[in-house]
């Protein structure tokens, strides 16, 4: 079938306003939140599952690449059509089909925006827990594809822990339910397999999400440290003491000075590192836990320990954390944001190594981390126009990821592999591991779904890697 025939067929399915094929229009679909760009051949924006199914049938018979697209905020190039093909947009599938407050569930279409779901169910005193910093814009479909995390996933878990079941569309257009409204459903946990598969196995068309009751009490602390190793030790201490705060976030001196000069949330200037710790739950538990946490803090020589006195102060404390990557724009034109996870007990060691790398390459590295999970986000500051700086930044990024793996960590904590890190996969997995994973594509018969992502192509060497997504231009308030 020719391109024009496919376009014609799509127009019959969704109407001509929702089939985009003029080059000028496709330009608005060549990017996502990462730096790569590539034009799809067609963008089609269905309104319902039936239309998706018909579109997929056509793509399947013609073996056309299919790239799902949520809000296009992904940071690893997941929604980019690097080999052309059909991009299927979910921006019109935004219905909340059912809210079941009785069973703490909702059934939604995948185009629903993360924070909108929480707003809609808040009248029942419920909320949807995973809260990526992009929650105001990213779709739940994108969240399931990336298995997104959030600030509060330390206590409440990531996306996969909150999706009970899904209706999925297979590459041939068949619709299948994997999991349902009940917590246990028979057979292999295909739900768990599709979540985090970055749109390569199946498209989610309906989601059954678990909702949580809003916590009764929330307390937020800011602790300022004289050394980054003290701060890291405190993180390990809190975790091993048996308290699970809802969030533990860390920022180092460079990150603090960046936010202080632009957003001014009132973090102590002279601190080498700060921690933001939040605990929530029943009032009594929060009181006791905050006592224990304060005890831990007090064992260290703190510059300051502050507890947010009201909601306004709490929001202000978080404002600095939220704005940090945008604020880094004040220090350098570009940054390369690395995402990796390490065991929490290795924080001191790894942060020291990152510091050494920074000294070696003579480029500043700002550390912002979901410390409670051991999820690092070192941002290597550089100037893209200076090619030697750029190369050094890329090499340093690779080196940091290698260190993560060496200490028992992993390549990505929440942004996914996509185009960005596909070449690094062999650092963690050998041929048989990768082969077993890629067998899923055969089991789902989905070679045309988001092709050539996640798995290494082997063609590129590490410094030449197309650094999709990792060199973000600075200036954005990427609150990872």
């Amino acid at each position, binding site marked *: 079938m020719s391109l024009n025939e496919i376009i014609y067929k799509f127009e019959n399915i969704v109407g001509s*306003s929702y089939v985009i094929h003029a080059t000028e229009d496709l*330009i608005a679909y060549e990017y996502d*939140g990462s730096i790569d760009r590539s034009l799809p051949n067609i*963008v089609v924006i269905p309104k319902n599952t039936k239309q998706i199914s018909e579109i997929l049938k056509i793509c399947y018979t013609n073996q056309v690449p299919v790239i799902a697209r949520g809000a296009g*905020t992904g940071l690893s190039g997941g929604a980019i059509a690097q080999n052309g093909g059909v991009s299927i947009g979910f*921006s019109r599938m935004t219905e909340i089909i059912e809210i079941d407050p009785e069973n703490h569930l909702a059934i939604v279409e995948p185009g629903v925006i993360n924070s909108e779901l929480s707003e809609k169910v808040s009248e029942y005193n419920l909320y949807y827990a995973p809260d990526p910093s992009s929650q*105001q814009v990213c779709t739940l479909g994108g969240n399931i594809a990336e298995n997104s995390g959030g600030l509060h996933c330390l206590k409440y878990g990531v996306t996969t822990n909150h999706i009970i079941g899904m209706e999925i569309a297979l590459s041939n257009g068949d619709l299948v339910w994997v999991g349902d409204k009940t917590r246990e459903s028979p057979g292999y946990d295909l739900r768990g397999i599709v979540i985090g598969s970055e749109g390569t196995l199946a498209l989610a068309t309906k989601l059954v999400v678990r909702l949580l009751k809003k916590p009764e009490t929330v307390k937020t602390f800011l602790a300022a440290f004289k050394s980054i190793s003290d701060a890291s030790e405190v993180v390990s201490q809190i975790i091993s003491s048996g308290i699970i705060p809802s969030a533990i976030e860390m920022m180092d001196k460079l990150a603090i000075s960046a936010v202080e000069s632009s957003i001014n949330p009132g973090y102590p200037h002279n601190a080498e590192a700060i921690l933001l710790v939040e605990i929530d739950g029943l009032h009594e538990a929060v009181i006791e836990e905050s006592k224990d946490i304060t005890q831990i803090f007090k064992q260290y020589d703190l510059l300051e320990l502050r507890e947010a006195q009201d909601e306004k102060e709490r929001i202000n404390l978080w404002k600095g954390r939220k704005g940090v990557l945008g604020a880094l724009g004040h220090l350098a034109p570009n940054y390369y944001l690395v995402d990796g996870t390490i065991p929490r007990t290795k924080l001191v060691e790894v942060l020291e190594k990152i510091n050494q790398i920074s000294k070696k390459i003579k480029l500043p590295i700002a550390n912002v981390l979901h410390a409670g999970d051991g999820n690092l986000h070192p941002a290597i500051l550089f100037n893209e126009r200076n090619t030697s700086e750029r190369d050094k930044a890329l090499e340093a990024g690779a080196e940091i990821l290698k260190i993560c793996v060496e200490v028992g960590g992993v390549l990505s904590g929440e942004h996914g592999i996509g185009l960005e890190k596909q070449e690094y996969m062999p650092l963690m997995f050998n041929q048989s591991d990768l082969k077993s994973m890629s067998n899923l594509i055969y089991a789902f018969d989905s070679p045309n779904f988001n092709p050539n992502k996640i798995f290494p192509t082997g063609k590129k060497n590490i410094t030449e890697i197309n650094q999709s997504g990792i060199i973000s231009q600075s200036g*954005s*308030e*990427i609150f990872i």
Partner: protein
Amino acid sequence: MILKNQQYPLSKDEKFIDGLYSCVHCGFCLQVCPTYRETGLETESPRGRIALMKAVNEERITASNIVIEHWDRCVQCRACEIACPSGVPYGMLIETTSHSIENTKNEFSLKMLIKSFFLRHIIPQQKYLKLFISLLYLLQLSKIPKIIQSIKFFNRLFPTLYNFNQMSPVISPPSMMASGQEFLGKGNRKGRVALFTGCLMSLCHGNQMNALVRILTHNGYTVELTENQVCCGAINSHSGDLETSKNLARKNIDFMLSDSINAIIVASAGCGSQLKDYFNLLESDTNYSKKADLFSKKVKDIHEFLVEIPLKLPTKLLNYNVTYQDSCHLTHVQKITDAPRKILSNIKGLNLIEMTESKMCCGAGGIYSITQPELSQSILTTKIKNVRATGSNIVATANPGCVIQLQYGIRKHDLNTEVKYVFELLDQAYHDDYI
């Protein structure tokens, strides 16, 4: 139809280019954009529009009609500017773009007629505008609009005219012409302010302008209606005609800027944003840049002003359920959201019910409702749905464009709700306090 497509960069201005590249396509602006929300199309989103600007500027594509249409569909509500964490100056980008493409299109259409004739020649001349509005008023008094509405096929034959007829503002005479009048402040004199009357507002909503004078004098301010003041030029700026808008700015500065006034009060959010931006507009005009700066600093939105002084508390009880629509230019450009609510909360008996997405545009956008009727109306329909859900008997807002658009929406959707300026309610609540 002749197309003269843009084959060269939109602008080589460094500020423009820096602005373009400060967008890191993070998508944080998508959900606040009314046109994206209505269509679900990335091409109708801020990020998409910027991507198209980049592509044209990089000479990857030409500014074809397809591209221009996407830019034209922007309501210029500037909600995206607020949402953007990277500080992308979207307002500047779209204005520069509109300016750059303005001369390349010479296709004949009603839109062009409005742009080239109405905006350039009628609006800037208060007397022509007055004539126009008076004609419109006479037309409204006659039965013609009703007749037009009842002709079934009119809609299909002349859709734009039909829409225009439906959307035309309810005119509330007498109009207010600024001709140097002065109204003395009551009680303890606190100072002197100049009231910016604007074009449309003073003509269509003269009654309401009089209320403003009552409110200000009641609060102890002498109000002058400076003679020879002209339209603020916002509409010209938005549609890319920067020259006309600079000329208008110079005139307003010449006539209104004076040491003797504490503030220039403006009640239309759109005009206020433009007046506050004169310093930027005339930045490179050596003769005016300083004066423009002074001028912009003196401009105060009425709500902002009243809350700052602070206003005298009204005594009359108004038992209304009111919902407040944040006017785009007040919210996203002037960043004023608390002041109008504070004023409303000072009125006894008044119950403020927040609607869902009060900060989302209503689709008015200057001449947008006429040039992009379909999109404008679908945005409006969503807005009316949210208004209806509050069950309020009044929807209050802060900009004439919004008042007119909401009135139209309420008529069209048969809602039993009145549209009022926030200060109109204050005026009502002062009723027993005026002596």
